[in-house]
């Protein structure tokens, strides 16, 4: 009997997931469907080599005759989005019959959701402020800051998203609760797909951005008459100090907007949560979508804040279950502090039969998990 096969490629600090799903076509004939979720990696430093995308895309393309059935972009971060555009520029292409993009990528998304639009504009403005502050204080432009800024670079991300948008005749913008139509959004006759996140209105994922005023980094206004000079200086400085907090908040909002979906096939249930962080998990929990799964792609490369707390994890991976369960983390050491997070991986490993990591294979190679039909 044909197996469902999950392949997670070692692309450094990033994701590239390929799922081969036995299915049937309209006439009932057995076929193998190819689902691809994200291809990308961090943009500089360790784990960032782009050339690794070439053998990965080539391998996937060979397996599916150059055309995936469904390509899913989990969220608009370059380390999840840039692989196909890069490979295409080098002459290695992968097409797709269906493409899922997060709802926030829809051209009319911000028209329909003014609150999300305001938040997005605030983020774009804040990113400009951050760049302004880094220009005035270059010592703040650490490698981590450069990673985060590059990853959240709106114009670069747009290029990648445009490429993905063009893969299929008509992309599907997805959110929790959206009806998924066979033929329109996906090809599956047997497997079932369910969206757990994101919310259609992504404004719920944005946190607070501290005030930043880059102009104050280079030129402080004189203390007005009658105002306590030291206090005024402290206030002015505070408006240049929230750079780290800001970029983390912006990065988190994008992560929390991840497409989180399950694929259920012949009794096996797979969960692919992108980089959804705890706020997204809290909202999924409130929406009561969370249920047991047999395969978990560990969120956000194994960071501590993308795996839900124990009470939720117990529902996702119940301890008393007798089913075989596998978790897989796609990650790379020493790129970000405490990622992957060993205590988080320990929490998961006590609930699964195997916890696999892409670090166990060479770059460009894949870790494979099989689920028998």
């Amino acid at each position, binding site marked *: 009997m044909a197996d469902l096969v999950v392949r997670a490629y070692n692309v450094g600090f990033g994701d590239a997931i390929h799922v081969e799903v036995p299915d049937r076509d309209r006439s009932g004939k057995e076929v193998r469907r190819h689902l691809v979720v994200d291809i990308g990696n961090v943009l500089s430093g360790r784990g960032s080599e782009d050339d690794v995308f070439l053998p990965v895309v080539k391998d996937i393309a060979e397996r599916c005759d150059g055309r995936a059935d469904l390509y899913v972009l989990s969220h608009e971060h370059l380390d999840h989005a840039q692989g196909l555009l890069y490979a295409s520029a080098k002459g290695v292409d992968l097409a797709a019959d269906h493409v899922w993009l997060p709802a926030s990528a829809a051209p009319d998304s911000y028209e329909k959701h003014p609150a999300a639009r*305001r938040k997005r504009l605030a983020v774009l403005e804040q990113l400009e402020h951050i760049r302004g502050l880094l220009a005035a204080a270059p010592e703040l432009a650490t490698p981590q800051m450069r990673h985060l800024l590059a990853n959240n670079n709106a114009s670069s991300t747009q290029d990648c998203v445009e490429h993905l948008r063009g893969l299929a005749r008509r992309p599907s913008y997805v959110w929790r609760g959206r009806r998924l139509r066979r033929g329109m959004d996906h090809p599956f006759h047997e497997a079932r797909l369910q969206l757990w996140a994101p919310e259609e209105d992504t404004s719920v994922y944005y946190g607070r951005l501290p*005030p930043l005023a880059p*102009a*104050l980094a280079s030129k402080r206004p004189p203390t007005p008459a009658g*105002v306590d000079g030291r206090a005024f200086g*402290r*206030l002015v400085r505070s408006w240049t100090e929230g750079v*780290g907090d800001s970029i983390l908040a912006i990065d988190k909002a994008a992560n929390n907007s991840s497409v989180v979906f399950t694929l259920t096939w012949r009794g096996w249930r797979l969960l692919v949560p992108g980089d959804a962080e705890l*706020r997204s998990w809290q909202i999924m929990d409130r929406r009561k979508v969370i249920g047991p799964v047999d395969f978990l792609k560990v969120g956000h490369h194994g960071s501590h804040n993308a795996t839900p707390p124990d009470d939720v994890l117990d529902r996702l991976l119940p301890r008393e279950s007798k089913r075989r369960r596998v978790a897989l983390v796609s990650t790379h050491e020493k790129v970000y502090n405490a990622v992957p997070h060993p205590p988080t991986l320990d929490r998961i490993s006590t609930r699964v039969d195997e916890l696999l990591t892409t670090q166990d294979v060479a770059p460009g190679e894949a870790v494979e998990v099989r689920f028998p039909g």
Partner: protein
Amino acid sequence: MIVSVPVMSQDVTLTDDPDIGRWMSLADWFVMKGEEPYYDGPVSRRVAVVDLDHRTGALRPGARFDDGRPRGETSKYVVEEGDRDEWGVGEIARIEADAFLQTSVFGTVVKTLKMFERAPMLGRRLTWGFGREQLLVVPRAGDMANAFYDRDTGSLQFFSVPTEDPDGRPIHTALSHDVVAHETAHAVLDGICPELYDAITPQARALHETFADVTSLLASLGDVYRLRMELDLEGRSLRSSTTFGRLAEQLGQHLGAAVGADALRDANNACTLDPDDNSHDRHGRPNFVGGIAAHDLSMVMTGAIYGVFRRLAQAERKRLEGGIPRSLAKLELGPVGLGAHLAAQRVARSVARARAHLPPGETSFADFGRAFLVADRLDHPRSPEPREWLVGELLARAVVERRDDLDVPASWPDLEGWDGPSALSSSAEARRLVSRNRALLGIPDKARYAVRTYDTGRGQVVVRVTWQVKEDNAATRDLAPERSVATGTTLVAETSTGRVLSLLASDSTADPRQVADRGRMLRWLADEDLLVDERDAVGPDGRPLREPIVARAVRGTMRLSGGARMVHCIGLPGLG
């Protein structure tokens, strides 16, 4: 020196209320004294508006101070006059102008501060909690639906909400009387109860919000002009939710669609801690508050206090329907308005004075309830009804399980070693007195404690004794197995005789619900990356992160610092 300052007296949306009518002014003059020197800004000794442009970092020109005294005129801050009709009726100021925004926020901050300092309330000049004399006020700190008091910078920062209005005018939180009064109250409370600022217990954080909301609400009700204009004086009932019960109308209406309410928070509520309560408010929101978000939780206590106010206002109204004393007739209010005014004064005073009796550290709603009962009893020994109403409210809202949970003794033992006012004349003397009365104050053996004293200015001295206790830190054991929590006792005594007027210790560390809620709060903070281990407290730019609370493990015990920046004016559902 007397200075006139134009201030916003009402949120813009209220003038659209058909019950109130469009004849009510948005702006009015507030007359202040005793804050000299004055400069353009406005800037005074204790409050300074610095209108920084968050985009450019430039400082906008401040409202001009006109010292009219050389011409024999009242000093004032100059603003552009508003439009007037052919009868000369109109606004005293052009509301949209920069100068009015600056003067209004300045005047409202000072007005709120003065309200606390007046004899019926605290009766003394207040100091800020951040160790400097001057509070900075930034009226346009950025674009978002928020405002906050920040102890670190000694500032109030107000933000603006862009709207979809065709004329594109943002909503300035600095122009909302309620929002400004609320944030000022946070700053005032930080000067009176600084330990509350760093508290992690959800009810303690919520008390900060309750105090700020009640202040802003009761400030409106204590404002005779506003009462005259808004309360139609005949038959208007406070039972239904009036404009007074609804805080920050304009901002709330703008955000209303998202939060399902037409005002940011409604003090006239039935919010409860009873998990078996399945009732809902008029917007369909459950009355049971099971979460730990300070703004949501505060509605339980705010609702209880408003309930007391409402009943007191009705009782006063009934009394005044029999005739208004000549001393009150000059206020030109009917029984309804006068009843509300007098009730607001009493409740506001008891709320403000309760702060002096509140135990230090991690306090609870029940702690505040007892403090209120003591404060109110001291001022109104022969009028117990409001105290009984408060007990009833707190029982009905499941803040306590039994009446006797709120019992406070009628009297306390005398202090040992009291030898006159000099017994508390210095910190060394205070420590000696505390040491002699260790058992009375409930200080555990071997506990190291801190003593803080201050004179209330009403012949009373407050002695706050704080120590740390350890709790199991199950919820955030990854940070440390135990956590250190502040608790203590507050003693209030007559300065001249040493007679103990109150002695209240917190129940927060003994109450399993508070212990559990602290765990929930810490877990939520950690999950949101707002509580970080000190090793992770450095941002990607190499600098300390400003937003999170930092957890430091000292010999297996977690100690926290920072984080009160989270005590914000506006809390939206779903956010902490």
